């Protein structure tokens, strides 16, 4: 069956959300296989350009997982991400990236089940949105 399988890139911070993902795996919680994880030391190091590059390179959805505000290993790294997230989402929307494809989630190290649930939800949401097609390819009518 040719069901669309979205590709989700997840930038997970080393101290919280990555641990949660790991825990979800160890606990053998059911997770959809569509997620590619990139471990970063802090969600604050995820530059908006990484998100843009991910979409441009073929990702259908991008998630940034960070520690809850106040719990950041580097004190305020996750606040940096929070600050960027709104403008980034607006910019992406103006460029044709629909709501739901880009997410910022706070996932603590102990929240393994939550991690699994969030990712599964996201995969289904993106599956419903369909593959992400950059606008240039959308509007191209044949020979460019």
């Amino acid at each position: 069956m040719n069901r669309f399988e979205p590709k989700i890139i997840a930038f997970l911070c080393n101290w919280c959300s990555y641990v949660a993902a790991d825990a979800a795996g160890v606990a053998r919680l059911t997770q959809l296989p569509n997620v590619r994880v990139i471990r970063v030391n802090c969600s604050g190091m995820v530059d908006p350009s990484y998100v843009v590059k991910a979409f441009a390179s073929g990702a259908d959805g991008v998630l940034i997982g960070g520690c809850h505000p106040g719990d950041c290993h580097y004190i305020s790294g996750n606040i940096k991400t929070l600050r960027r997230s709104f403008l980034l989402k607006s910019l992406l929307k103006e460029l044709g990236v629909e709501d739901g494809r880009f997410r910022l989630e706070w996932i603590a190290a102990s929240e393994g089940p939550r991690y699994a649930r969030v990712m599964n939800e996201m995969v289904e949401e993106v599956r419903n949105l369909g593959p992400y097609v950059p606008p240039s390819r959308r509007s191209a009518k044949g020979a460019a």
Partner: protein
Amino acid sequence: MPKKKLAVYTATGCRACENSILDVHFQVSPVTPWAEVSFWPYLAGSQWQDLDGDDQIDLCLFAGAIRTADDRKAALRLREKTRLIVAVGACSAFGGMPGLVNLGGVANDADPVATDESTQPGLPRTEPRVSALSDIIDVDYVVPGCPPPKNLLWSAIQALLCPGECTSRISYAASRLPDPISQSLTSGILPPRGSTFAGDKAVCASCSRVKEEKKFRSVFRPYAIDPDPGRCLLEQGVLCQGVATREGCGGLCTAAGAPCRGCFGKAQAVFDPGAKMVSAISSTFDSTKAAEIEAMSREFVDLAGTFYRYTMPAQCVLLAGPAKDENNAGDVL
């Protein structure tokens, strides 16, 4: 010493770049001792047949974005006949303001109606998207700006057309240009292919305004505030693109009271101007509460149209040109 052959052409845009080149010839230093102009339709009335001979053109200054089939043909023909092509001006370098058509996402509102060409002339078809020159052909050098300042134009002509022979020096241009280019002005060695005749850093490096601490709580639309002329605009709450934009203009716009809008394209170290601006602006928000940050973010309007005003076709990573197959993930995934 045979004279070099020079060509100047504009595809679709305005005539500011060609007028600037003409001004360089008359106001800065004449090019005619070193070059004969073999193709300059705007000024000399050259016709396409003039290119049919065996001679190669040594330097072609190409301005204007690629909007129609005729523009594409012109670019291909000139590339075929030319040794070095320079994309002059934001339109040919990155797509320019005509590139905003790509954001519109609407079907071309100007498609010509098919006519009976036996009684009425047809028109060249518009392309589905506006392209920069580098989307169509290999471009050897770039002189950005809208229009490029005369000193940078002259440094390009000097370095590429009459290398090592010209005696006039433009100290400001040479001082902001990266070393390989400024050295080529006097050494006679061509700068590395693909070089941009502008600085490497961001406009902030040449802007004359004082920069203190970038923290602001409120955002102002440019019409709603009379900013202090001595202080950084971003610090006063006015969106200025200088942070992500290549320097070389000397901070012209900010000196005139207007925020930078990025006509020199992205700075060397920037991956995508929009992403960089998001990062730069967000880092100045003076708050840690989500609701406040969200409210401030909403004050910024037309992000894509501002961040990519001159660079949509070539430098907006998400919208940049064709090439990858829709079903493939591309090179990464």
